């Protein structure tokens, strides 16, 4: 049924790109009252964020718009999920961290997008060393670890994270993102990650594929 309904995709996306929280909330309320179906609200946000992410990759949309769009969607989903008597999905068990530096925008975008998609995940924080991330990952017994980096030297350290996790018997899947991985298409493979997010907004699809056991390229 959801597939055949025309949601106000363009109107919602426009509100997000204009950082218009009030308009975005009005659209959400309208859809909620009309259909009383959280799945549709989720589809509206996930689709909008994916299009915004693609727009950023194409150079049409700014990173600040990607970020603010994610924050607005996260807030709206957080408000309407309890109204619909739903809770966040706790499978797969996920966490996100910034390796070595304190630039956390990318992490925040991915976090917001996943929350807006109804996923629960832990935020390990930023400025973490290899050992700290490994320790936290093992302790939380994660299925998926998302690592954000800004600097090349930090991106190269992902390999040390993966090696250490394997030595400690973890089979967690590692997804990486950030500027160094965007500027070198093969870097994620070199550091033995399982997947690479080209923009924060496509993370939902990556998670779905990883959970299906799909091969990512």
């Amino acid at each position: 049924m959801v597939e055949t309904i025309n949601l106000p995709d363009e109107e919602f996306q426009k509100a997000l790109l204009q950082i218009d929280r009030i308009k975005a909330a009005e659209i959400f309320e309208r859809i909620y009252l009309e259909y009383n179906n959280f799945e549709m609200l989720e589809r509206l946000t996930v689709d909008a964020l994916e299009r915004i992410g693609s727009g950023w990759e194409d150079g049409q949309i700014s990173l600040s718009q990607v970020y603010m769009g994610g924050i607005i969607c996260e807030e709206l989903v957080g408000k309407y999920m309890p109204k619909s008597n739903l809770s966040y999905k706790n499978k797969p068990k996920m966490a996100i961290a910034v390796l070595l530096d304190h630039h956390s925008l990318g992490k925040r975008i991915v976090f917001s997008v996943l929350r807006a998609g109804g996923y629960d995940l832990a935020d390990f924080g930023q400025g973490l060393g290899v050992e700290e991330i490994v320790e936290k990952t093992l302790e939380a017994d994660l299925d998926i670890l998302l690592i954000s980096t800004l600097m090349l030297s930090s991106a190269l350290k992902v390999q040390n994270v993966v090696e250490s996790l394997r030595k400690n018997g973890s089979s967690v899947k590692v997804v990486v993102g950030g500027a160094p991985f965007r500027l070198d298409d093969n870097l994620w493979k070199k550091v033995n990650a399982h997947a690479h997010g080209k923009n924060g907004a496509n993370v939902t699809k990556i998670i779905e594929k990883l959970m299906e056991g799909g091969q990512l390229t």
Partner: protein
Amino acid sequence: MNSMERAMTSITHKEPDRVPVFHLLSHYGAKELDISIKDYFSKPDAVVEAQLRMRKKYSNDCLYTFFYAPIEIEAYGGEVVFVEDGPPNSGEPLIKNIEQIKNITPPEINESKPLQRVLEVTSTLKKSVGNDAPIIGVVMSPFSLPVMQMGFEKYLELLYFHKDEFNQLMKINEEFCVAWANAQLEAGAAAICYFDPLASPAIIERAIYLKTGHIVAKNTLNRINGAIATHLASSIALPVVDDIVETGSAVLGFSGEDDVKAIKERATGKICLLGNLNGIDMMNWDGERTKKEVRELIQKAARGGGFILSDNHGEIPLQVPEEVLLEVAETVKEHGVYPIKAEL
């Protein structure tokens, strides 16, 4: 032609003897001297020695007195984190909440040891090279610096929702930026590289930039007593070429993701292009790949002058092999001689 003449000819949109090459080497100097990055930047003599050695070794047409991006944060009292194999990075943001902005004052250049080291390097290099080669000093734009001062998320909140406090921070940062740029020019820098990645529409949408960072840039550059190269640090520049021209900048550092032919067309006669080899990808290149990339770039961007060959980020990563930098220089000597012959 010497390096200064070569660069100046190209900046004025004429063809020099060959394409100028600016290898923007900062912490790479530590590798040259085989010492730690932290040790390297604590010793002005070491930076001078490495810059002079690397200029000769890589046929570099400039000297680059950039230490590391958060040196200005250090001057503001913030933390710098040194790593073994990459550029020093900013630590925990200095501004924890927006209310703090009203209490911030611009740092005194004379009171900052790291900034004094940069000035010492600049004046020593100037004594050594005179007018043979340009010394390029560096400032962070007042508009982009807050990413390190307060973290990106908090800064976006300031930019979008707190106009008064945003303007207040811009005033503080402008004062410091102008003073810091002029101090480097007085010490012997020939030009200032104004790093402003947030001017790119990949980071901040152009409509917002025009109402904020663009005005800040015009005000700031107007008060700097020398030539300016605006650098977007790997972010796309094509949609804002004319905007950057309006700021009074003479040079534009563009991205590896920009369409070279399109940006050349738009910049011709207006602003000299600086770029755009992909510094991250360069760590994977061998001799053949290097030659191919450099030749293609020269063919697309060098005709008529107005072009300086460089990396696209404003800093060569430590992981880029020396052989790649040597091959860049050799390829330019072979294929970058004016008039440029059609090769591809």
